[in-house]
């Protein structure tokens, strides 16, 4: 009989927003404490424990303390490198934790006739055989996957931990991430402890076994947060096993339940958006909650920057919300969309626009339309764009402009 926690995609250090970053770390601490409470024999982390190879250490100190506490209580933490933990330079916090004995890295292998034979880590408490395959950025690990082979004994409980997207498994391809074919995955395991896909997946695969992706423990991206806001869940698994799996249970993380407000800006002006946003925020019960405000569409006029983020943040803060983050990346303005830049030459742009306005002009005077009109416009612009010199008197400057204007419009010839 044995029991373990399967945690994945913790992404410690993710988020710039201190509130979210802290909630993420809190979630990890919560998961470790929960595992302790549930008397697990060991914990598997299927990659991406950290968001970057070297995160800001003070921020994750508490999380590491908690890991050491767990290990000191004789609960092993098994893990593999996820794509975010790994650094080509070799320097990563993950490698330090392995060296410090806080994490037991699962990847053991040897080469044999061009094949890579994975060796198990045998859990001394439960006798479970745990195999691990690390990940690289951009699924660079797939080349190794192709060559791996495993020769496990048949009468033990076998776990294969990995951090890769398997083709056809995920419904939500948010990152359009590279995948590896299922044929690369070793068959006949009892439990496949997956990571990398930010989506909870639990399925029985013929010839393989129980395939489980817990999804992120908390969230590492705003897309994750939006999913939670839309009713999705995050958390980790606790698995009971003997010869095979006895029970698997998803433990939901309820540390955060963000609120998502979406505003369609199509055909509206910034002031309308502000009014709508404020009234919708006012209507919400935001005590201690985190707000995701997503404004998208095309403004009929004005600048997108006129949607005053600072003001909205102020309002949300006054309602004792835990925080707010605003998405205006899909917000555009017709006023600027209307500016067609076909030409990147300043002089040509001037000509083109004068041409456009001259075509619309109803005047009949031939000097003021067509090529002659354009020439006058350009000459006038070149005359008038020059500022008064400091050593030039106002009347002198005025006379200079008037005389030159007279020449441009050909005043002498009228008389």
């Amino acid at each position, binding site marked *: 009989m044995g029991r373990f926690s399967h945690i994945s995609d913790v992404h410690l250090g993710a988020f710039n927003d201190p509130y979210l970053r802290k909630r993420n770390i809190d979630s990890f601490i919560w998961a470790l404490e929960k595992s302790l409470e549930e008397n697990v024999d060991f914990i598997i982390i299927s990659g991406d424990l950290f968001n970057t190879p070297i995160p800001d250490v003070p921020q994750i100190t508490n999380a590491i303390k908690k890991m050491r506490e767990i290990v000191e209580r004789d609960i092993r933490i098994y893990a593999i490198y996820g794509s975010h933990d790994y650094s080509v330079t070799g320097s990563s916090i993950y490698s330090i934790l392995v060296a410090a004995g806080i994490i037991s890295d699962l990847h053991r292998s040897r080469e044999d006739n061009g094949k890579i034979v994975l060796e198990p880590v045998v859990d001394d408490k439960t006798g479970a055989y745990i195999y691990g395959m690390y990940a690289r950025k951009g699924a660079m690990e797939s080349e190794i996957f192709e060559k791996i082979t495993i020769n496990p004994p048949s009468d033990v409980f076998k776990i294969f931990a990995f951090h890769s997207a398997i083709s056809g498994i995920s419904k939500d391809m948010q990152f359009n991430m590279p995948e590896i074919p299922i044929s690369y995955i070793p068959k006949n395991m009892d439990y496949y402890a997956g990571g990398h896909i930010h989506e909870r997946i639990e399925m029985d695969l013929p010839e393989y076994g129980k395939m489980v992706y817990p999804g992120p423990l908390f969230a590492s991206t705003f897309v994750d947060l939006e999913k939670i806001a839309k009713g999705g869940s995050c958390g980790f698994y606790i698995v009971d096993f003997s010869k095979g799996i006895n029970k698997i249970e998803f433990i939901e993380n309820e540390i955060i339940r963000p609120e998502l407000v979406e505003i369609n800006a199509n055909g509206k002006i910034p002031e309308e958006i502000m009014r709508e946003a404020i009234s919708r925020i006012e209507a919400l019960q935001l005590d201690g909650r985190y707000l995701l405000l997503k404004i998208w569409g095309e403004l009929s006029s004005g600048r997108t920057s006129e949607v005053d983020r600072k003001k909205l943040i102020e309002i949300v803060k006054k309602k004792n919300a835990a925080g707010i983050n605003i998405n205006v990346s899909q917000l555009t303005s017709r006023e600027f969309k209307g500016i067609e830049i076909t030409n990147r030459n300043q002089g040509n742009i001037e000509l083109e626009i004068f041409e456009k306005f001259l075509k619309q002009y109803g005047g009949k005077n031939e000097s003021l339309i067509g090529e002659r009109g354009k020439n006058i416009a350009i000459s006038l612009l070149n005359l008038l764009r020059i500022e008064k010199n400091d050593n030039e008197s106002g009347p002198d400057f005025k006379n200079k402009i008037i005389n030159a204007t007279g020449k441009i*419009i050909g005043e002498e010839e009228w008389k």
Partner: protein
Amino acid sequence: MIIRSVELKNIRSYREGIIEFPRGRVVLLGDIGAGKSTILMSIEFALFGLGDQDGSSLLRVNENSGHVILEMEIDNRIYKIKRALKRKNGRVTQDKVIIEENGRAESFTPTEAKAYIMKILNYNEPLNPRARSTIFRYAIYTPQEEMKKILNANPEERKKTIRKAFRIEDYSIARENSKIVIDYLKEKHDYYSGKGVGIEEIKGEIEQIDKEIYEIDKEIGNELEIFNKLNIEINELNVKIERINEEMKEISEKIGRLTLRKKDLDELNSQYEDLNKEIEKAEKDLKKLYEGHEKNLIIREYRKDEIDNELNEIDKKIRELNEKRGELKSYEGSLREIRKNKEELKKKIDINYIKKLESEVENLRSEILKISINKPEKSKEELDRMEKEIEKEIRSMIKKSENINSKISDYEAILKNGICPTCDREAKPEDFISRLENKRMEKLSIDKKLEELEKRKDEIKKEKENISNYEIYAAKLDILQAKENELKEKRQDMVEKEEKLKEYQGMEEEIEEKLREISLIENNLRLMESKKEELRKIRLKIEEYEKEENKIELMKREIESKKKELEKTFARIESIKKEIMDLEQYENMMEKKKSEHDELKDNKEKMDKERERINNNIITLNTRKNEKIKLKESKLNEIREKERSLRLAQRYMEYYNWIIEVFLPALESIEKTILEMRRMEFNESFQRWFYMLVDDPTKTARIDEDFTPIVEQDGYVQEMEYLSGGERSAVALSYRLSLNSVVREVSLNDGENLLILDEPTDGFSSEQIQRFPEILNQTRSDQVIIVSHEADISRLADYTIRIRKDNGVSYIINSGNF
């Protein structure tokens, strides 16, 4: 622009210092406050002066003067700029600026210098004495503080700065200046439309004038009718007068003819008398001529053509003789030539010189016989070499001898004292007796050898003297040889000349013979000439006789014709007498016609007076009419002038409307478009740099409409305060580089190769610092000057200049050895 060196004297924390800048990445490394930024400030000061900066912030405290010398390279030309500061009465001001271009220096005032440098740098921006260069500030060097100011400014202020840097201000300046044009057009419109007022009133006045002209025309018509009638009557009278005049003219012509005829008759009568007398005289002269002519009959025996033939024959002979004589005369010239040549040749034969040569040769021969020396066996060089070798040997022998001498004296001392003088130890004298003997023997042999060598040396010396004597002997032999040759040549030459003389003598005699023939010919010629003269005289006489005969014939014919004329004159006298009788009746008719003519003329004068009166009336009326027409014309001109004013007013209005409806809205649109285009360029550049510096696919960055940098994660805006240090630095550096590149594009057409970065990596992670060289490569700058306090940066640089501050004074360390 490439900076080559900066020299500081009493600038802020520097007492003095020179920094040489190579191309490539140069890092100015030093602790915060060490004086790195002062170098950048000095570069900017050297280029553009103080601007709005207070001079006392640059000049070192307690110093009265200081300067910066900047050396830079632009398009392969080297410029050196020296800007100085001086403190006077507590105020720090700029001194004159010296600019050296490729070694040629010139002085400028600070303002002139700035304008000149802007021109060199090709910076097209307004010359504001209170500011430095916007282009430099944003395209090349943006101080860290300035960068923070831009990033932390509120959107409106930031946009203002950016607009200025991107020259977007141009359009608002143009819009502002358009007000002058609009006001002007409006003013002109108002002026001309004011001038155009009152056309209708003038039209009324013209109508009145037209009426008056009509009345005058009517009066003129009436007067003209009377005038025309009078004209007809006067014309009829004129016709009558004319007719009488014609008749009177005819009569007076007849009277005139009568007078003429009377005169003719008188003349004819006297002619008749004269002719009679002339005939008489001619007949007398003829008779006299005949008498003389009869005497010369004898001359008729000669014939003129025969004489002519004979004369031709003689002329031919004379010509032939003359030719012959001319031919012979030409020999006279040849004779003169030959005689001259002969004389010259005689002069050239110089026997004295030959004699002198002969005696010289004789003397030399006897001199040489006296010397007679054999040719030496060895050359001088060989002997020199041998002499040197012997001298070398002598030197070595002397040295050996000296050595042996010292040994001998040593051994003698041992024999005397029993102590070695070299090592001061005791020595047994008996051991040295044989040694001393040996050494003495050795010395004898060397001395003998030396003697031999000296002897040999003397021999060589003699041989060398022999060589120089022989050289004199050989030289004399050479001279003798030359003289003998010359003598031989001269003798040969004399023989040739004497032969030539003989030849000339023969030629001279031959010509003299020919010249004697000439006198014979000349006698012959004289004979011919006298015969010719005789024949000519006879011929003249024949001609004279023939002339007289002709004259007699002529006189006869003349007398005959005069007699015929006499008859004709008589007949004409008779006819004129008859005509005179007919013409005498017209003298009475003339009186009658005269009284008739006077009566008609009186009548006509009366009528003329009447016509003149009416005519004057008409002229007065026409004058009045013309005045009215002129008045009307001036009124019409007034109308035309007013119409023109109205047209001009309309023109100005059209231009005014065009500015309001086309020009200004277009400017607004251009401004928006250009701003958006620049923002797009800025954004593209910003995103590119940010992507290079931040390795997180969920994080993106962009520039919004207000040029605010925005970092987003999954589309959610990440507030600046929450960004990590590395991310914030990435934003700052990306923004700065984008600003630099867009301003370069806008103002310098991308033509700049210098970039100055002030603490660009402040807050970077070590991984970001690793990426920094790639970023620098992408800036495509030949020279990047980086100011940093981070020692890591110098690993990425081509060259590092360290700045240190001790006791308030900055020092430049390891500059120049690149």
